[in-house]
């Protein structure tokens, strides 16, 4: 019997544009290198890293994870709405996603503030150098990502969002998901790793 060859239903679709994936994958690659550096340093002094990790407040980590995952969901829904030709709905969803992003920044400020008030700063030990620097670099990505979301919001509100609107939504959305993904790994490494 001849195997049935199914015709390809789709020619393959790259969300956004091909180029934006150079940035997204490049950034993921760079963060992977950062995490490898962290794990190498951790392996040299597991006791210190574990003891310092125990002093982190996991509730903040969990809250931040929930905020970013929720915002990612809103962004994904906004992209679906944009594809369906409902930019007004996209705009509403983007505002919700941006609110979650603001919540993330506020929660980060409280978390860092509590640590600094407790006398734990950048050079307290190696673990905290990593903690402040990596979460700081990630926070910078959150700010850049929120800038992208604000751009998408203004475009969604325009009467005519333009021909490249859906691609821009997909590309910007993919960047936001990457920021989320990196946080999930940071959360696992800094708060949960045993």
């Amino acid at each position, binding site marked *: 019997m001849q195997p049935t060859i199914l015709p390809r239903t789709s020619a393959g679709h790259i969300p956004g*544009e091909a180029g934006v994936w150079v940035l997204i994958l490049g950034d993921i690659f760079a963060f992977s290198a950062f995490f490898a550096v962290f794990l190498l340093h951790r392996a040299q002094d597991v006791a210190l890293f574990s003891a310092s990790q125990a002093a982190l407040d996991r509730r903040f980590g969990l809250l931040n994870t929930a905020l970013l995952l929720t915002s990612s969901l809103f962004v994904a829904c906004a992209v679906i709405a944009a594809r369906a030709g409902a930019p007004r709905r996209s705009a509403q969803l983007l505002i919700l996603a941006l609110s979650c992003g603001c919540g993330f920044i506020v929660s980060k400020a409280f978390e860092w503030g509590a640590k600094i008030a407790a006398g734990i700063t950048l050079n307290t030990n190696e673990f905290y150098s990593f903690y402040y620097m990596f979460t700081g670099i990630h926070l910078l990505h959150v700010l850049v990502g929120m800038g992208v979301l604000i751009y998408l919001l203004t475009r969604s509100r325009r009467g005519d969002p333009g021909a490249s609107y859906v691609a821009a939504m997909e590309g910007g959305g993919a960047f936001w998901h990457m920021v989320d993904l990196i946080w999930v790994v940071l959360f696992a490494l800094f708060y949960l790793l045993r």
Partner: protein
Amino acid sequence: MNYRAQLACAWIGLASTVLLFVAMWPLMHFLPPLDPALPTATVAAIYRTNGTGIIVGGLFLLAATSALMPFFSAVAMQLTRMERPSKLWTYTFLTSAVLGFVPLLIAEMLFSTAAYRPERPDEIIQVLNDFGFIMFVGPALPGTVQILASAIPVLADRNTDPIFPRWVGYANIWAAILVTPGCMVTLFKRGPFAWNGAISFWVAAIAFGIWVSINFWATRRAVLREMRSA
């Protein structure tokens, strides 16, 4: 148009990046950079034993950074073609290039000053060494601005046949992000964010190398295409 001169300037950029490496590695022995946590006496001993290497390597460093300027101008020529008639990002690109590379010349002179009178007390040699490396790695932010200024026009290019492929714009944003952590070196004496660190030095140096290579390729390609259509 002076296409051949532009091509030559593009090649000079690639050559000076190699020259930068030759200066740092076999001559100055600064690859990897000296550990900021080294004892004062050890730092002084390094300048006393490899004084000539550091001074000659410094001259190579001077030559390499100077020769990067024609390369930046060749890239800037393409940036203006993208953003015509405005020159906003071209100006930002060129002025930040100067702001970012002047500290490298000063760093070179600080290293040479340390090696110039090896009979000086250890502490003074260490101060010059600290100042040199902080000058060398620390002023990363003009570099971030410069590289970002090479990304924005690529993504905003409205030519029907874009001058640089769009992915180059995204790759440039990526490089701009990765050269940034160098600005934190004064906060650390050890670890990945110190001036010899995996992230502030190596990641930044590799990202800069990749940025030069990609933009060399894109500039050369754009000049050749312009030449053919002229």
